[in-house]
């Protein structure tokens, strides 16, 4: 993901300009290229978080951790609906908040983005 975003950014004109004005390669990569390549990476991080949150149900069952995920699975198995409702809602809300934070981080990474 980062690789393809970097390849895309490194072909841009402003990278050529930075090279032409004699910036060090390290500075170009870290301050220009990586910063501009971060947007798609951030999006993927946000979306992956959902998978991780839901995956906690699996991980907690395997390793016997008493967390939200296992609580939810136990709730399903014992037909404890309020527990299922609460845990599903909690995980979905966390997922939405994380994606909101990702959206807000876009502005820090790329000041051109306005809301």
């Amino acid at each position, binding site marked *: 993901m980062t690789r393809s975003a970097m390849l895309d950014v490194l072909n841009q004109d402003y990278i050529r300009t930075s090279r032409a004005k004699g910036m060090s390669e390290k500075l170009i990569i870290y301050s220009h290229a990586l910063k501009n390549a971060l947007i798609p990476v951030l999006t993927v991080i946000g979306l992956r978080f*959902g998978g991780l*949150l839901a995956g906690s149900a699996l991980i907690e069952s395997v390793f016997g951790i008493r967390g939200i995920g296992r609580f*939810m*699975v136990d709730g399903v198995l014992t*037909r404890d*609906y309020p527990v299922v409702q609460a845990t*599903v809602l909690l995980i979905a809300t966390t*997922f939405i908040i994380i994606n909101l934070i990702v959206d807000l981080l876009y502005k820090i990474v790329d000041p051109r983005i306005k809301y």
Partner: protein
Amino acid sequence: MLIKSKVLKRFLKRKSSLVGGIIIIIFILVAIFGPYLTSRNPLDIDLRNTYQKPNRDNWLGTDNLGRDTLTRLIYGARITLIISFTSVFLGTLVGLILGVIAGYYGGLIDNILMRTTDILLAFPGLLLAIAIVAILGSGIMNTMLAIAFYSIPYIARIVRGVVISIKGLEYIQACEVIGCSNFITIINHIIPNSMSQVIVNTTLNLGTAILTSSALSFLGLGVQPPHPEWGAMLSTARDVMRTTPIAALIPGVAITLVVLSFSLVGDGLRDALDPRLKNN
């Protein structure tokens, strides 16, 4: 026909996708001809031979009740593939219909449908499946419904985007000018032209569906024992992972192999059907 052979040629050029396709075909054949490949019953219990290592009688060893792992793996391929194909087919069908309606008609219908998919997308996939199983109860049928339901919003979103881009093209306007009804336009022109995206996503979804059904069965929410499902086999083998790792390794490798193959085929199809490459 010419286009199809070109697509096939481009697909076959990618060796990894070809290997993925061959693996999937082998698994499908194993699932269809399972009973001819083994004379044993996947549910036959033999308590004197539990947790056997691979030997001459049991090629891949036995599980906690002495059932032959190879036989269970072969019969498990049936259940796993039936669940994934049926659920993805159902999900794609409903998603396609909703996506086409939302994209073609636009306005209020589009708004209502897309806000509903937004709500569904707010739940991570596996979580939505768990929530649906909590409502419907566990079992093969409900696992299929749960997986079908959670794949609807993804397909609907993709199809809507494609339909909106196709709707503005000249041949759709030409169709309107000669007086085609909305239904004819959708069936004859919109759906066939958005099929390439749908096929790619369906293939990629098949892998996810297998993973989700295995995860649900692993948690005890999907296929119930004694049915031989790969996720359920993995779950049974979990307790003896340290002493008999092969029992967990075999269904794990089978799941990984099939999911990897579907994803390789999906990637290959995406490259082969990409309109930007059509003229090359």
